[in-house]
């Protein structure tokens, strides 16, 4: 990088933070002409506190419930001012996307504003200390599911398939080049994009930070996290082969699953297969 970093190297994120990796990689792709928004969440650390910020681009701290509404306003105002070469980026976590932010996300997509909505999914409300979200996986420990979450995670990607996204994709910190490729596509489309990035969190999931990328890769290899994208009405599964038996290894590396029962592990494996089957069927259509 002979170019200056557009994101500070010295921020007080956790060591090994996948959210930071996603944010940094995103700005490498999107460049200087980007306006970013963060809600109160882990990504707010990048927006900074006191009189300091980590972004080298303009940023706006929103409220948790309505980042996509803020983004709608920014996107339209840029159009009014005749500015068409600036990317509007929303950088929210699973809380601000699946739960409290769901209404405004759905609204912003429905209205078709030109903006990229990245969701970094660390499967809990991490910034407030690891409380469960609807994105938390089945059986996982969080501070509000101390004996393991009883519900499967909400499938936001399938839900959003029924909205008119100009570009939609899943991605992972386990494959940064794939994430960057997808983000480039999102930048080009004239409408709303949604990129859902898996972000295994060492602090919240209880594993040593150096395992972050390995665990993200295991999620992909076991089929727990499927990589796919949707554009022009068609789904493309990026990675066909996975080994559902690797779910056991995937879970065993995470402290949040230290007490998980065999039954739950079997449930999780069933879910992996179920989701893949649905996605495979949907892949046959070209009218999505």
């Amino acid at each position, binding site marked *: 990088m002979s170019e200056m970093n557009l994101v500070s*190297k010295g921020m007080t994120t956790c060591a090994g933070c996948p959210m930071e990796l996603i944010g940094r990689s995103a700005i490498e792709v999107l460049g200087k002409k980007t306006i970013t928004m963060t809600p109160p969440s882990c990504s707010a650390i990048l927006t900074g506190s006191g009189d300091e910020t980590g972004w080298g681009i303009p940023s706006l701290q929103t409220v948790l419930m309505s980042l996509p509404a803020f983004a709608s306003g920014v996107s339209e105002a840029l159009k009014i001012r005749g500015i068409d070469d600036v990317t509007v980026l929303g950088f929210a976590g699973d809380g601000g996307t699946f739960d409290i932010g769901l209404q405004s996300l759905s609204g912003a997509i429905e209205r078709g504003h030109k903006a990229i909505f990245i969701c970094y999914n660390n499967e809990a409300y991490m910034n407030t200390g690891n409380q469960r979200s609807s994105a938390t996986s089945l059986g996982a420990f969080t501070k509000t599911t101390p004996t393991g979450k009883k519900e499967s995670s909400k499938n936001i990607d399938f839900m959003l398939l029924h909205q008119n996204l100009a570009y939609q994709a899943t991605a992972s910190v386990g494959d940064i080049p794939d994430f960057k490729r997808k983000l480039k596509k999102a930048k080009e489309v004239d409408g709303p994009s949604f990129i859902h990035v898996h972000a295994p969190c060492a602090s919240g999931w209880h594993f040593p930070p150096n395992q972050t990328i390995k665990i993200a890769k295991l999620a992909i290899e076991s089929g727990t996290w499927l990589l796919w994208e949707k554009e022009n009405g068609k789904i493309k599964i990026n990675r066909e082969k996975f080994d559902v038996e690797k779910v056991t290894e995937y879970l065993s590396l995470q402290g949040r699953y230290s007490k998980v029962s065999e039954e739950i592990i079997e449930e999780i494996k069933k879910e992996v297969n179920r989701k893949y089957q649905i996605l495979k069927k949907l892949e046959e259509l070209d009218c999505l």
Partner: protein
Amino acid sequence: MQKLAEERMKKLESMKGLKGPYSAKIVDENTGIWRKDRPVINNDLCIKCNICATYCPIGAIEKQDKMVIDYDYCKGCGICAEECPKSAIDLINEKNFEDGGN
């Protein structure tokens, strides 16, 4: 001070007089002092594939004539060592270095 922070310091004067909560200074914490173990690249094994730089969450690794780690900021998370396909990065306890923390 990293380049981004330096560049921004030059612009601060022109932003005086703005009303409301805004932050123009770049946060520039010396997060290198968090480190327990320092990643050291063995240049004989390194093939400059850039994977360590791609996966470093804080962007502390750069490809120059060799791969260079910015130890002012490196938190010692160890992702680079774990991901290196050539096992060319060793994590060495800070106390082994003259300028090492403890």
